[in-house]
């Protein structure tokens, strides 16, 4: 792939941040993996679980590229060794050795993270959970699912479908992301509006601590108030406090009557009142409320994500909102939810000052999937269009468009809005959760564009008292921006907790904490 190599060369230019980081990492005095380490790993793991460019294994370095490169192709690690254990015991043995030897470990799931948290900064060992992909148990009465951390989210959904249950989270990366990674990053996604965050739906965890100890809190109890709730620390810790190897999660009964509609809005100002109206009329059946600005929609269509709306429906639309409703699973629920949805749509169209131009309502499961494909395909469309600087922020609902426009204007004032610099500035996201995905699409990642965007965007978010990372996490990308959303006392406590769990600093060094 020519463009990948080109981007690789451009991206390899160290940023000021990377240089600072290299210094702080060397201060940790972590050791590099050597041949004796690889020999040891080859003894405790099967051949297929050890990939290393070092002797005696001598894997081709091209085979390690996917583990060393993040999904956006922005971050490139230099790991020589990737281990793919099959059991929790094997994970524990690996971590024990690395703890003694002071070797840095990067736990890796589906490697779909967007903040560079899942790839090495230097040559830390990559510990991939991909081989641990068994479902351990499922109780159809309580809906509690216990699974290995390496289970792909979509596989879990497919397993649950005949049992009439669904996972409490869903995201565009579902075909590749793993549940362990989802939990480690406290992934949000398209269903959070209805099913809440993982902090609520995860009931138990099995974690390998930074010294190799296996912490078994894989409870299947819905309620258990016995002492400090340790699992909450690991949820969202991005692999810096422990490696999650097993997850116990509460799944939800599958709604039978699911419908969706994409509404075309003449002005962004209508999004907030539309959300209020939708909440009021749909109440408990509202399961998703997503925002797509006009440019983002056009890019999705351009790159073949989902099927485009009819020309007449799209004319004059400044932005779109995708609304999903999910009723219960009894027959009259289906009729009730359709009539609630129709009621909302009628009132919107017939209002004196209509909030919408028009909309498109799915008429079959195929169309339901196609409408979602437009929203879920936005991330991929953005990646196909160019190199994306992604800012995942929480700000007041009514300020979404302001932030997108202000960022674009700022780049324009720096002369960077050109085909060979920044091509587009788009916004889309979980507007129902107050979460905007601001994407600045550039022809290439350059220090000039980065300097124009940071700290500009973070300061802009700070002005709104928002979060610099609503759901994507901190990873490597935002360690220096943590202070925009958390004060010094909080950060100090976090550092102390990190030190308590991981005194040798081997787990995912350089990530999350500055």
């Amino acid at each position, binding site marked *: 792939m020519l463009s990948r190599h080109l981007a690789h060369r451009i991206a390899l230019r160290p940023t000021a941040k990377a240089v600072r980081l290299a210094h702080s990492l060397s201060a940790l005095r972590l050791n590099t993996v050597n041949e004796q380490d690889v020999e040891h790993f080859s003894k405790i793991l099967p051949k297929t679980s050890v990939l290393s460019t070092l002797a005696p294994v001598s894997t081709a370095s091209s085979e390690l590229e996917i583990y060393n490169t993040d999904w956006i192709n922005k971050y490139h690690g230099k790991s020589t060794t990737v281990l793919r254990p099959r059991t929790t015991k094997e994970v524990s043995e690996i971590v024990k050795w690395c703890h003694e030897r002071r070797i840095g470990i990067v736990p890796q799931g589906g490697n779909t993270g967007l903040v560079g948290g899942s790839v090495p900064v230097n040559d830390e060992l990559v510990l991939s959970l991909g081989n641990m992909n068994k479902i351990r148990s499922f109780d159809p009465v309580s809906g509690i699912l216990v699974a290995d951390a390496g289970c792909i989210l979509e596989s879990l959904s497919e397993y649950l479908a005949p049992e009439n249950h669904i996972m409490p989270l869903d995201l565009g990366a579902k075909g590749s992301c793993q549940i362990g990674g989802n939990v480690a990053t406290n992934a949000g996604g398209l269903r959070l509006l209805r099913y809440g965050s993982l902090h609520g739906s995860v009931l138990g965890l099995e974690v390998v601590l930074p010294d190799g100890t296996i912490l078994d809190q894989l409870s299947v109890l819905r309620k258990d108030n016995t002492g400090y709730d340790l699992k909450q620390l690991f949820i969202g810790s991005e692999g810096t406090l422990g490696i999650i190897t097993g997850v116990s999660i509460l799944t939800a009964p599958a709604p039978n009557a699911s419908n969706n509609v994409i509404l075309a809005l003449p002005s962004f100002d209508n999004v907030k009142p539309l959300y209020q109206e939708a909440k009021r009329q749909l109440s408990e059946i509202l399961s998703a409320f997503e925002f797509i600005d006009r440019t983002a929609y056009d890019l999705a269509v351009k790159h073949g994500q989902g*099927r485009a709306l009819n020309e007449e429906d799209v004319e004059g639309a400044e932005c779109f909102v995708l609304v999903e409703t999910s009723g219960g699973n009894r027959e009259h629920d289906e009729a009730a939810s359709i009539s609630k949805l129709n009621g909302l*749509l009628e009132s919107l169209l017939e209002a004196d000052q209509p909030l919408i131009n*028009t*909309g*498109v*309502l*799915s008429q*079959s*499961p195929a169309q339901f999937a196609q409408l979602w494909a437009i929203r879920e395909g936005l991330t991929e469309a953005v990646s196909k269009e160019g190199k994306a600087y992604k800012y995942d922020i929480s700000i007041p609902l009514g300020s979404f468009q302001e932030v997108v426009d202000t960022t674009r204007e700022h780049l324009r004032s720096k002369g960077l809005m050109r085909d060979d610099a920044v091509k587009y500035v788009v916004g889309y996201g979980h507007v129902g959760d107050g979460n905007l995905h601001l994407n600045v699409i550039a022809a290439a990642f350059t220090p000039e564009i980065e300097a124009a965007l940071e700290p500009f965007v973070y300061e802009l978010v700070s002005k709104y008292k928002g979060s610099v990372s609503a759901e994507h996490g901190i990873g490597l990308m935002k360690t220096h921006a943590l202070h925009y959303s958390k004060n010094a006392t909080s950060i100090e406590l976090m550092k102390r907790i990190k030190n308590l769990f991981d005194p040798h600093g081997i787990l995912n060094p350089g990530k999350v904490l500055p």
Partner: protein
Amino acid sequence: MRPTASRLLNILVPVKRTIDYAVKIRVNPDQKGVDLSVKHSMNPFDEIAVEEAVRLRKKLKDAVKSIKVVTIGPSKSTETLRTALAMGADSGIHVEISDSAPPPEPLGVAKVLRAVIEKQKESGGIDLVILGKQAIDDDQGQTGQMLAGLLDWPQATFASKLVVNAEKREANITREIDGGLQELKCKLPLVVTTDLRFHVLNAHILPSEPHYASLPNIMKAKKKPIEKFTPADLGIDLTPRIETVKISEPPKRVGGGKVENVDELIAKLKEAGITAVKA
């Protein structure tokens, strides 16, 4: 010049509510039927027929006086009519059967459709019937042909292209046949059954993917009239003439095996009872 009344076309599109094509079919334990408590939607071939009627109107404009959709089914089939109305049909006819009635057979359906068409004579008659070539639940593919036979009308089945000349009351149809395409010229009134390729050739969109129904059309569709009849009203008896003896799933695919060399292959073939053909 406005087309004279005798050259205005009334189009009838029969549609069927079937299990959605994406649903995994499960045979019932009694092996007499399949699980029907799943998502249903309009038979994809009928969607193409409705879309084609709407497109004909776009082309011929005032020459198309009306597009009527008709369905024979339980109460829920009204939803299918509403979808067709949202796609651009003008009015619907629902020949309602009870929820527990057995699914109608093609001959029964054709007889009902003939009765409906006879009734339509009072309001200008029907000039063109466009329907899907088969339904995806029973795959019979007989209704269009039987209807043409009962009406003594010409038929053009498996059509992928339809060009109508309202003035001359003629149509040119391209049919999909084994080995290629066949072109027919027929006089109206005419029965046409649609094949998948209609969309690829005519609309540059994927097969079986009609336009999304936009909200204003859906709202308008709610107000369009739907006439209701029972088969008895039309003097038709839909009692099945065919008995379903058994329904079963196809045998599960057994895994294959790999062999190391040709000798092993020959040995395995012999084991399976396959002998060499005499040269």
